[in-house]
């Protein structure tokens, strides 16, 4: 099936939804209709994406254009198929989520219009067939996302977060333009598939420069460390569905860009390019989760977790590129496949978690961990859905996060096949870093699920939480998707293997899925694992305690007594772990990274309580902000100060500039 008409249908649906939102978004019925149309568009995008995955690269379709910007060309590639399908899934889930989340108002109508246009722009980025289409769509997407974040522009942190997003997006855009310009100039064409075909025309140095520029530029959007600073500022301040879209899809557009340059446009390169990418990914993953453990706000915590997962995906891509440099084509394709699978998985469970964070925020009025607690009893369905998402993101079996991380690890463990001792050691180091990240992720998500949902409510608002009239359809759909991606992993992997054959030319299916249910990592006799059988096994094993209980239940009278609490008078919520104390061990162990600054304020030196309270404050140093961004910003401000005298405001000076410029132009022409 040709995916392009289906995707055109999706785009039309989103355009129609935008119109509906802008005109009648201030009524509840208008919002419902807009979301229904948007959801249909999402379904079409999902179908189109899957079809693009399976049917290979479509032909390039020219859709008009102008002399100034060139032709608008579209092509649905297999690589983009995963991302388009993910966009479709997120669109459907958001469409189910929005009606109960947003209050109908004029601002909501505008917001939904912008949202649908942003989805349309993202689709355009993914199906762009030439450089100009890509860049125009990219910039449009960035601006629309900026407007998306600004749903409540009068709040100060919203404006700051949105500004960070736009500023760093633009800096990245400069690098992306430079990368594309290099390639287009050297291959004398603007069409992406022709650039890929003529990649050999670009000499080694230019290839490296283009790739590094692309890695930096797309890294800004994806959230690679140290280019990630905007992510924890921008994602939390957007409304929940906006944050979900940003984390679930927009960061993946950065990943798509890196994959485009690394695997399609410039597939072959020196090994150090892959090692650099892998190292960047591993560092990103570790730093992302370490900072996530230090957060008291649910959405900032999830934003840092996004950084961690992006790091994992980029590590997989980097290792794939390294393997290709040593001729290991199977592992090259395998790790690309594993990375793309992780893209789909992360998109599904991160969107779910952000949507649930929005539900919690609306139910309790707060986003801080230390003000929540005991929500499992008060919001049972939301807690079950969040639990599915948490299991997925903590990469615990049998869910989808586990399958994709297992694949990535198995690929990394085969580093010895490169034949170079140094590179093999570096790959193992990356695997070790991912292992640390995985452990910390479980720790972080025990905190992320346990503190809000389990235990006793820590405040009255948490005790009064209720999930009546809260959106549930959207998160439920995503939870079902997570489970389906896990249990149906063989189907998913078979589809991805088809796509990989188009992208890389490597036939992965026989060495990936020899039977129909077992997955092996590209080489037999290394390891194997069956996600479906694992799920069945875990379900069967969890039946054992149930059976033991049923068989061994006391037949005589039994007595129910409260949980043993040490005989204290009453259990108070403040006796529980707080989010920050739970993660205190990491702050102690990694204090070289956090460099906490501690301030203690006491009325006198008497022991606490006899002279008044003691005020204790500990703050982790924002390393990248302080040591990288602030100096760069200060340097630019200095430069602006130096240059300011040019703008004196004096008309005569400006006329002199015009005269001088014309004079210089004559002189140059004369030479």
């Amino acid at each position: 099936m040709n995916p392009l008409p289906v995707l055109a249908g999706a785009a039309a649906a989103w355009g129609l939804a935008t119109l509906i939102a802008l005109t009648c978004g201030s009524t509840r019925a208008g919002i419902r209709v807009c979301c229904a149309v948007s959801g249909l568009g999402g379904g079409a995008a999902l179908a189109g994406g899957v079809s693009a995955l399976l049917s290979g690269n479509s032909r390039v379709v020219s859709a008009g254009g102008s002399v100034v910007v060139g032709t608008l060309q579209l092509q649905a590639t297999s690589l983009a198929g995963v991302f388009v399908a993910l966009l479709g899934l997120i669109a459907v889930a958001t469409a189910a989520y929005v009606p109960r989340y947003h209050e109908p108002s004029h601002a909501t109508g505008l917001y939904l219009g912008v949202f649908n246009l942003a989805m349309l722009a993202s689709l355009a980025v993914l199906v762009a067939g030439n450089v100009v289409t890509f860049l125009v769509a990219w910039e449009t997407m960035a601006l629309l996302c900026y407007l998306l974040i600004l749903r409540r522009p009068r709040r100060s942190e919203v404006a700051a977060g949105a500004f960070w997003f736009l500023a760093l997006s633009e800096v990245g855009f400069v690098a992306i333009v430079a990368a594309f310009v290099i390639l287009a100039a050297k291959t004398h064409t603007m069409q992406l598939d022709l650039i890929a075909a003529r990649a050999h025309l670009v000499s080694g140095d230019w290839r490296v420069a283009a790739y590094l520029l692309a890695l930096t530029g797309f890294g800004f959007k994806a959230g690679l460390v140290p280019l990630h600073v905007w992510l924890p500022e921008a994602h939390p301040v957007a409304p929940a569905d906006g944050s979900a879209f940003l984390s679930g899809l927009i960061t993946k557009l950065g990943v798509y860009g890196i994959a485009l340059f690394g695997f399609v446009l410039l597939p072959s390169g020196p090994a150090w390019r892959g090692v650099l990418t892998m190292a960047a990914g591993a560092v990103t993953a570790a730093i992302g989760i370490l900072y996530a453990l230090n957060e008291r706000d649910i959405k900032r915590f999830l934003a840092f977790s996004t950084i961690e997962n992006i790091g994992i995906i980029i590590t997989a891509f980097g290792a794939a590129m390294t393997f290709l440099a040593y001729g290991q084509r199977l592992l090259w394709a395998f790790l690309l496949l594993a990375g793309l699978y992780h893209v789909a998985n992360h998109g599904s469970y991160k969107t779910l978690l952000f949507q649930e964070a929005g539900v919690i925020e609306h139910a309790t009025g707060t986003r801080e961990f230390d003000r929540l607690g005991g929500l499992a009893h008060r919001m049972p369905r939301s807690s079950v859905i969040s639990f599915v998402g948490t299991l997925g993101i903590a990469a615990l079996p049998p869910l989808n996060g586990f399958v994709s991380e297992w694949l990535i690890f198995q690929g990394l463990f085969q580093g010895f096949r490169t034949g170079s001792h140094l590179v093999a050691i570096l790959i193992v180091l990356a695997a070790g870093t991912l292992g640390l990240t995985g452990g910390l992720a479980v720790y972080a998500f025990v905190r992320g699920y346990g503190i809000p949902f389990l235990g006793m409510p820590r405040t009255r608002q948490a005790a009064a939480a209720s999930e009546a009239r809260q959106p549930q359809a959207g998160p439920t759909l995503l939870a079902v998707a997570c489970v389906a991606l896990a249990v149906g992993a063989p189907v998913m992997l078979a589809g991805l293997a088809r796509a990989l054959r188009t992208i890389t030319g490597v036939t992965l299916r026989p060495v990936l899925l020899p039977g129909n249910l077992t997955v092996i990592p590209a080489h037999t006799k290394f390891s194997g694992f069956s996600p479906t059988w694992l799920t069945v096994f875990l379900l069967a094993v969890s039946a054992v305690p149930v059976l033991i209980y049923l068989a061994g239940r006391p037949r005589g009278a039994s007595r129910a007594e409260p949980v043993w609490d040490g005989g204290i008078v009453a259990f108070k919520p403040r006796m529980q772990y707080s989010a920050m104390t739970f993660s205190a061990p990491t702050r102690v162990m990694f204090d070289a990274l956090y460099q906490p600054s501690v301030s203690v304020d006491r009325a006198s030196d008497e022991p606490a309580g006899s002279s008044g309270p003691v005020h204790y404050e500990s703050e982790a140093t924002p390393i990248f902000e302080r040591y990288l961004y602030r100096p760069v910003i200060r340097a630019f401000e200095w430069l602006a100060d130096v240059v300011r005298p040019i703008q004196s405001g004096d008309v005569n000076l400006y006329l002199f500039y015009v005269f001088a410029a014309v004079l210089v132009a004559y002189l140059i022409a004369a030479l």
Partner: protein
Amino acid sequence: MTSQGTTELTVQENAEELRRTVTRLFGRSLHIRTLDTGSCASCEQEIRLLAAPHYDLHRLGFFFTPAPRHADLLMVTGPMVRAFENAARKTYDAIPDPKIVVATGACALGGVYQPDPFTHGGVGGTFPVDVWIPGCPPSPLALLQGLLVAVGRLADKVKDLDFALNGTPR
């Protein structure tokens, strides 16, 4: 057991049946939870010595446990200070049945302290006590004897003593 429809056991036979059941359940493996309801801790020091090499209660199959859920026997010392009564009751309730309560030391048995606004003067009113161990503090040997009486491995000796000396002074 008579040949009539209902079984009619004498008090004596009941007690014997109970002792046999208790010995069967706890005779070789008993987990003890100690509870201090306001004592001077002398009894606690003697109880601690039970785990030391000289007295070694582990050789008899007895163990200390802090968790009431895992305990079989509650060893109570102290005169039951009123402020502690709630916690003591909670501890008793948290121990699963069947359980044994042993009151240890003169304070718990009603000596030393009279009932007043701060203390009950003894633990008899708070729990149903099974074995009473006198002493101030009871030596570890007395404690061992008390525990063995509680699980039915030794017979209760004191009921046959009369504390009256007959004949020449010792």
